[in-house]
């Protein structure tokens, strides 16, 4: 009774592709309504780790639990229904559909037609996508397509939101808006955010987990992480501000 069940609990997760170990014995625990940043150099295994959490990949070893329920090996659609939403690194949107239709596909699951419509409108307004609501997503700028993808994720109202490089390719202003949005989402939902932009990390982060070569290098408060020499060595290096 006394023990608090975490929202997400990944235990000793390993993902191998032939000889390559993309994720190597990673354990990560996330509480309800927690915000976690995940950083690490390219190829550190961040995206692959997200894929194991969402069922896109079945981990070679290890277990993944959501609120105590073992979800290892479940399909992406089953995990989505348990309240996990992801914005992938390479945008996954319905290019041939309008922004409105993209969000509607997400919003209609488990809702009446009227409630789905209300959710679409609310989400489009929240992400300021109303002006492009009736445009085909394939024709939108990269930044806007990312917003549409985030909108589809939010319209499902997941308890856990994974954002893989949400600010990549965005203008400075868009990056700031993304940071604001993440803080706002975090009032009600838990997030794990993968990002490279250190300024962005400073804007939003409390706890940061650092990946390197598939392993967790360290996990600490953002200030401690950014001051750490090992992190500077593997990751920040010359780019450190």
């Amino acid at each position, binding site marked *: 009774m006394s023990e608090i069940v975490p929202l997400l609990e990944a235990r000793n997760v390993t993902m191998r592709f032939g000889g390559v170990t993309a994720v190597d014995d990673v354990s990560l625990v996330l509480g309800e309504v927690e915000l976690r940043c995940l950083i690490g150099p390219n190829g550190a295994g961040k995206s692959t780790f997200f894929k194991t959490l*969402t069922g*896109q990949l079945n981990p070679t070893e290890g277990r993944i639990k959501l609120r105590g329920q073992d979800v290892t090996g479940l*399909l*992406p*659609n089953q995990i*989505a*229904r348990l309240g996990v*939403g*992801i914005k*992938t690194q390479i945008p*996954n*949107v*319905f*290019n*041939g*559909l309008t922004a409105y*239709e993209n969000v*509607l*596909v*997400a919003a*209609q*699951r488990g809702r009446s037609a009227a409630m789905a419509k209300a959710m679409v409108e609310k989400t489009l307004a929240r992400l300021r996508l109303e002006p492009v609501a*009736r445009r085909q997503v394939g024709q939108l700028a990269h930044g806007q397509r990312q917003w549409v*993808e985030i909108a*589809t994720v939010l319209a*499902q109202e997941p308890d856990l939101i994974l954002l893989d490089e949400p600010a990549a390719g965005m203008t400075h202003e868009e990056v700031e808006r993304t940071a604001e949005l993440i803080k706002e989402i975090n009032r009600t939902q838990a997030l794990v955010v993968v990002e490279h932009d250190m300024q962005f990390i400073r804007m939003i982060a409390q706890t940061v987990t650092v990946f390197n070569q598939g392993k967790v290098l360290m996990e600490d408060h953002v200030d401690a992480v950014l001051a750490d020499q090992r992190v500077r060595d593997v990751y920040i290096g010359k780019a450190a501000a």
Partner: protein
Amino acid sequence: MKFNSAWAGFIAVLIAGLVVLFAVPQIVSLFGIVQMTVFVAMAMYALSQGFLWGFGGIMCFGQASFLGLGAYAYAITAINLGDTSWGMLAGVAVPAIFALLLGYFMFYGRISDAYIGVITLTVSVILFQLINSTSGAQYHIGQAELGGFNGIPSVPTLNMPGDVSNVLSPTGIWYVSMALLIIVYALLRLALASRFGRVVVAIRENETRAMLLGYDARLYKLLSFTISAAIAGLAGCIYDNWGGFISPTIFGLAMSAEVIIFVLVGGLGTLIGPILGGVGLQYVMNLAGTQHKVDPNLGLGVVLVAFVLLVPQGVVPVIRDKAMQLFIRRGAKAARIQETSP
């Protein structure tokens, strides 16, 4: 706005369909009516492929399997039971159940898209060989002799449900066939506008995203595949009623290839396109067949190459886009006039 124009198009097509339904018996000779019935069969067949490929994003290279299964199931059931209403039911149910089993194996077995093409093609070849090798009296289902490559002669024509003695005239068959085409078209349009249809199209657009939003892509693909097979089976029943006989050539590669061409020429991603493609090209093939100057299949090949080079989107999308441009330009003009007028 797009919503309204889409529904206006739907209503217009329905009205046009009803006009054709009632006008044809008034103005076309009896021989012509019989001809028109095979056009309807081909339109229905093309619709089955156009829905699956254009909206479900599933490329079936052996759609003739379902056309043939429908035609044979209709014939065999009607011969055995007398009442052709059961034949119609079997003609839809048998290919649907067959597709359900085949589709379960393909989609739940995570067979890749390219292999789905290969498997469906192979299945149609197997069915052809199977039915083709049933010559002799020992191959029969109930009273229906399968007849090998000669097929089944004298397939019973549709009767009024429950009244075997009341057999429909060619005009009656026209009414039933054309009405069925209109109904199937309307049901598909409504299905595509529903939640189900939105997910089917979303999976075509991006299967990964659809799964990450909680939809089981395998289930939706299986349902689209089954619906498509049922419609192809219905086309097979109409085909029986046109010719009054059925042979294994209905399972042939030519039949599977033709329907792909119908869809491509008419317009992928529309429902009316395949219908018009089926009618138009069947008409051209009939014409070529009676002229005895060009081989119909050669003619069809030439048409396909010409369209792929000149109108790759197909006829209907091109016309629709042109009409839309005209509409928008007119609208803009009207808006300008309104703006300038005080």
